[in-house]
C-alpha cells in the first residue's frame, strides 16, 4: 500500500515536470542563437557535411569524451564484478552443437558486418552515422561470432589492445588541438580539405574512427564477459 502511494507520488512529480515543459513550449519558426551559429558557420568552419557530426565531435566534443568515459567505466565495473569461467569449465559444460546454418552464415556475414560498421564510422562526417553507431554494429558482428562458437576465447588481447590504444589516441588528438588549433578536441589540426569528400573535415574522421573502434571493442568486451560469466557466485 505504502509502495503504491510512493509510486503515485513519483508519477505525479514526473507529470508535473513534463507539464511545465509542455506549457512552456512555443513553436518557433527560427533557430535559437547557438543552433543558428552551428547551422550557418558549421560547414565553413569545420568542413563537415553532416552537421550533427560536427556538433557531436567538435563543438560538443567534451560531451562525447564524457560518454566514452562512461562506457569505459561501465565495462570495467562489469569486468570487476563478473567472475569468468575458465576455458576448461566452458568446455566441460558442453554447449549444444551450433547448427550448420549458423556456422555458414556467420562465416559469410561477419566480415560484411564489420565492413559496414567501419563504413558507418569512417563516413560519419558525410552521411548519417558515426563512432557510436559503427561501434555498435561491429559489436553485433562479434555477438554473431560468439553465438556460432560459444567456447571461443581468442581475440581477448586484441580487443583490449584496440580499446586502450584508440582511447589514448583520442585524448592525444584532443590535446594536440590545444597546441595546433583553437582548443581541446578542435578538428582543424589537419586541413579541412574539399567539402564533402572522404578526406575532409580535418580530424573528424580520425576521431570518429577512433571512437568507433573504442566503442566496438568496449561493447565486445562486455559481451565477452557476459558470455563467460559464472552461473552463481
Amino acid at each position, binding site marked *: 500500500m505504502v509502495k503504491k502511494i510512493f509510486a503515485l507520488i513519483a508519477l505525479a512529480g514526473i507529470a508535473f515536470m513534463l507539464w511545465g515543459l509542455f506549457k512552456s513550449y512555443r513553436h518557433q519558426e527560427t533557430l535559437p542563437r547557438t543552433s543558428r551559429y552551428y547551422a550557418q558557420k558549421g560547414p565553413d568552419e569545420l568542413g563537415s557535411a553532416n552537421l550533427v557530426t560536427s556538433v557531436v565531435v567538435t563543438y560538443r566534443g567534451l560531451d562525447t569524451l564524457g560518454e566514452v568515459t562512461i562506457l569505459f567505466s561501465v565495462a570495467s565495473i562489469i569486468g570487476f564484478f563478473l567472475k569468468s569461467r575458465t576455458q576448461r569449465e566452458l568446455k566441460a559444460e558442453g554447449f549444444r552443437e551450433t547448427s550448420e546454418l549458423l556456422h555458414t552464415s556467420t562465416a559469410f556475414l561477419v566480415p560484411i558486418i564489420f565492413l559496414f560498421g567501419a563504413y558507418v564510422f569512417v563516413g560519419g562526417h558525410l552521411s548519417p552515422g558515426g563512432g557510436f553507431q559503427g561501434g555498435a554494429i561491429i559489436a553485433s558482428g562479434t555477438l554473431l561470432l560468439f553465438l556460432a562458437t560459444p567456447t571461443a576465447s581468442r581475440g581477448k588481447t586484441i580487443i583490449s589492445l584496440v580499446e586502450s590504444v584508440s582511447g589514448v589516441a583520442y585524448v592525444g588528438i584532443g590535446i594536440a588541438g590545444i597546441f595546433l588549433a583553437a582548443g581541446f578536441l578542435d578538428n582543424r589540426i589537419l586541413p579541412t580539405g574539399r567539402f564533402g569528400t572522404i578526406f575532409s573535415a580535418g580530424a573528424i574522421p580520425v576521431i570518429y574512427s577512433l571512437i568507433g573502434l573504442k566503442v566496438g571493442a568496449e561493447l565486445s568486451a562486455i559481451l565477452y564477459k557476459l558470455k563467460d*560469466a559464472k552461473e552463481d557466485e
Partner: protein
Amino acid sequence: MIYFWVLTIVICAVMLGSAIMALYHKSLAVTVIAAGLVSLLASILYLILAAPDVAMTEAAIGSGLSTVMFFYVLRRMRGGENG
C-alpha cells in the same frame, strides 16, 4: 503528409502496447522481446522525425545489443525467474 500522421499514430499505439506487455507479461523472455520492440519502433519514429543519426544508435544499441545483454543476464539468474 496524412500518411506520416497515420504511420506515427500506429507506431505510437504499438509502442504503448508492447511497453505495457513488457511490464505485465508473465514470461521474462517475452518482456525482454517486448522492450526490444519498443526500441525498434522508437528508432523508426526518429527516422520519421528526420534524425537518422539517433535512429541508427537506437536500432543498434537499444533493440540489438541491450536485448541480447538482457538474455545473457536472464540465463545467469536461471531458477530465479520470479525473484
